[in-house]
């Protein structure tokens, strides 16, 4: 073993291995996932690590699984919804449906927004409810994300609006609560193609770390 710095090639190989092991935090993971989509050689190294580590899979014992097929099929094939749809189910379904609606709304709302300041790249997103009863305008500039409610009311008493980012097919990551006055916080990066969503949570935010309430607005991030 040497203490020489890793070569760029080793550096990439180690990063792919760290990603597959899962030791990176959510922000780093999102960055690596963007790279996997954009860089086929790097993606191949990730697959190679999955194969290398597969030899440890016998360390996972089997555990009886309940029959979740009806719920999975309902989610995938749109059959009658189960009585207790998980919030993630609803989020996934909503986002699929929201794609088109968001594009239409974006076209409508973009006209109403002031032109972006000509300093640095500005990333915007419009988060809208399916019935357009609630909407938020998100703006990312100079490392700060600002979210302002443009249509509809603040969360009712005893509830909070919580902001989430979904990158690729990763689980939603909370960005914190949107207060009645709005939301302004520093953020490392807002990747294009990510989705911002707002859920209605108990006061103070989701108790679980994942969304637990209904999605009240969502929209894709666009440059």
């Amino acid at each position, binding site marked *: *073993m040497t203490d020489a710095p*890793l070569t760029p090639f*080793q550096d990439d*190989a*180690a990063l792919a*291995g*760290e990603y*597959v*092991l*899962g*030791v*990176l*935090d*959510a922000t780093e*993971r999102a960055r690596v996932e963007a790279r996997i989509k954009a860089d086929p050689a790097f993606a191949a190294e990730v*697959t*190679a690590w*999955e*194969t*290398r*580590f*597969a*030899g*440890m*899979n*016998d*360390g*996972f*014992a*089997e*555990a*009886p*699984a*309940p029959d*979740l*097929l009806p*719920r*999975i*099929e309902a*989610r*995938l*094939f749109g059959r009658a919804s189960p009585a207790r749809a*998980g919030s*993630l*189910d609803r989020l*996934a379904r909503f986002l699929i449906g929201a794609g088109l609606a968001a594009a239409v709304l974006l076209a409508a709302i973009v006209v109403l927004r002031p032109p972006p300041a000509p300093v640095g790249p500005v990333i915007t997103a419009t988060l809208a409810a399916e019935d357009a009863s609630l909407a938020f305008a998100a703006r990312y500039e100079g490392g700060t994300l600002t979210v302002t409610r443009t249509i509809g009311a603040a969360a009712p008493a005893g509830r909070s609006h919580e902001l989430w980012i979904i990158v690729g*097919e*990763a*689980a*939603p*990551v*909370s960005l914190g609560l949107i207060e009645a006055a709005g939301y302004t916080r520093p953020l490392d990066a807002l990747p294009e193609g990510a989705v911002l969503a707002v859920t209605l949570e108990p006061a103070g935010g989701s108790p679980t*770390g*994942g969304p637990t309430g209904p999605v009240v607005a969502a929209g894709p991030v666009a440059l």
Partner: protein
Amino acid sequence: MTDDPIAELLIRVATGDRTAFRELYAATSSKLMGVLVRMLGQRAEAEEALQDVFTRVWTRAGRFDAARGSALGWLVAVARNAAIDRLRARPPVLTGTKEDEAATVADDRPGVEAGLIAKGEARRVVDCMAEIEPDRAAAVRGAYLQGRSYQALAERHGVPLNTMRTWLRRSLIRLRECMER
């Protein structure tokens, strides 16, 4: 075709075959549930995650390449990813509080893979892990099997986070070199 029955199912799932999807669930859900329970430490969340996993499997089955590894290995990778996404989305204070220490400590020991089959990749990763310092190999195992983050590994091994990162990155490079040999 292939002599891997799981791969046969996965290839049919990629064509939109719902019967194959049901058979795949019957054949692999307990293994994948085992992965999720082990990594997430909570049965209820593992059941939620299992639904995410099979949803992903349906939409991504076309990406499985039988030339690159076993179908079950591909499925476990999908399950591990779903578990890690959930673990990393948890607020930091919750990380590491849900582990069953008694169960996890034992699993860190190299003996875990002792019952492993002497075949292909499995043999190679076991042999190559033996070439790494035992505490670093334990960190790799803890990350792979329990989904431990850098922060959790650093706390567990009583070293600064950057030290753990350096250890693990160098261990990965040595593991890679050993396995590519």
